[in-house]
């Protein structure tokens, strides 16, 4: 049987993680091609609706990338993103969903290597978890 290849939807902030992903490319860092990046202006602009829509439609993981605490271009967007993710994960926990498919990571514009490593690690973890059960959920 073909090995399961997880699909990750990533919401990356323009100022840090998206630029970090760019750096990963220009410095020829290798990382698995399982990720589909959506460019956001700020991690604070990632509403939980984006995360949930991706997961319910069958994404195996969602990565939200923002600036390190204190470094947000808009001062506090990343702290707000962290609250939203915290709230969403607690909801998941309460209704018995796994929250491990949602990753929030701080990756700066200069951390191309960290971006590549994060994606590599996330793909490994998701492979262990197997496909998202919502992938075939016609009733959702």
């Amino acid at each position: 049987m073909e090995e399961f290849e997880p699909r990750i939807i990533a919401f990356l902030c323009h100022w840090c993680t998206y630029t970090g992903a760019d750096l990963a490319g220009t410095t020829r860092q290798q990382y698995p091609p399982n990720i589909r990046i959506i460019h956001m202006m700020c991690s604070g602009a990632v509403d939980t609706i984006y995360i949930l829509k991706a997961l319910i439609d069958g994404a195996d993981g969602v990565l939200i990338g923002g600036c390190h605490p204190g470094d947000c271009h808009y001062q506090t967007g990343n702290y707000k993103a962290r609250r939203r993710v915290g709230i969403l994960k607690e909801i998941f926990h309460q209704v018995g969903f796994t929250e491990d498919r949602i990753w929030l990571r701080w990756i700066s514009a200069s951390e191309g290597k960290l971006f590549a490593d994060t994606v590599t690690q996330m793909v490994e973890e998701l492979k262990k978890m197997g496909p998202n059960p919502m992938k075939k959920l016609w009733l959702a």
Partner: protein
Amino acid sequence: MSKSAMLEVKNNDPIGTLRDFFRDLLEKKVVDALLIPKKLPSGDGYCQTLIRNPELLVDVNPLAPTVPVQSARLISHLTIMDPGCKVGAVLKSCEVRAVIELVKFLQVKLDRLILIGVDCLGTYEPSGYAKMSREKGKGGSITGNLLKGAREGKIKPQDGYDLRLACQICEYPNPQNADVIIGLFGHNPQKEIYVELRDGLAGELAEKGILATTEKGSSSRDSVIERLTEERLKRRDEVFDAFRSRVKNLQDLMDALSTCIRCHNCMVACPICYCKECVFKTPTFEHKADQFLRWADRKGGVRMPTDTLLFHLIRLSHMVTSCIGCGLCDSACPNDLPVATLFRAVGQKVQGLFDYTPGRSVDEEPPVATFKEDELQGESGTN
């Protein structure tokens, strides 16, 4: 600080006595308009009515045992723009708590608002009340029957009818954060009603000869409320436990929500869902045929209308931190989904993360509107 008085009940008619009290408030300009439940001409229900002419106070019932709509939303309409006069609003505890939340979301302004909270005897579904009132002919004593239990805090619903589940598990039988509190618990409502006033108002009411207050309080009321709250908490936890053992994974949640028809009634009824244009009513969710077909392709088929799970989870993530537990979502649901229990059970834990109690104080920022620098550090994989 607040002051209190005992209102002497005339002719064994607590509702009539309160009606006179409110007539005084209106006639002596303590309030210029009063929002208060008034019996429908059909006699089978109540509706909140904004009253300017004291003559219309006939048939008002501040203790009406129904909540057809959440008054917090009405208060928003009345105060978001300066009403230009003082508006009094007679509300139940859950409605006061919703008002407090809406103040924080800038949907209610307290400046010209006088919150009048009443001890809540619990409420029936409006349809149940209507049926009951037809059975009893006039329905005049439905409130009276509930009132019998006020003194001991042992409220018995009419035989064959239940109070709404949200009321059965409500741990806030008495209103907090109101300018005027009408207290029923711990006293014989045929004889006396406890009234608590915030300091400024106490002076005004004394000056206008409406009510003279002292600083006494009511220990009998306090102890009844304490016991009632304990009983409700116990019942609440039983309901939460039952829900949690029923919903343990994705499939369970899907089963619990399976008969949802995406009517959005829960959202419309919810006082906290205040957005003028909810994302679920925007073109984003007017899917085209090719989108439906693509989903059907990918999943083998797709339920229509779709996005049910998304709808409930998004509503949870957007407003569960401020859910005050009025249960009007339950009342609005045509298919009896356990929406209120879902929101209250999940809300308890999510609110707990931030030590937040919705409706407790206007000074506490709602969790979705603020953050702390040194919190939730595990979320970013850094601890």
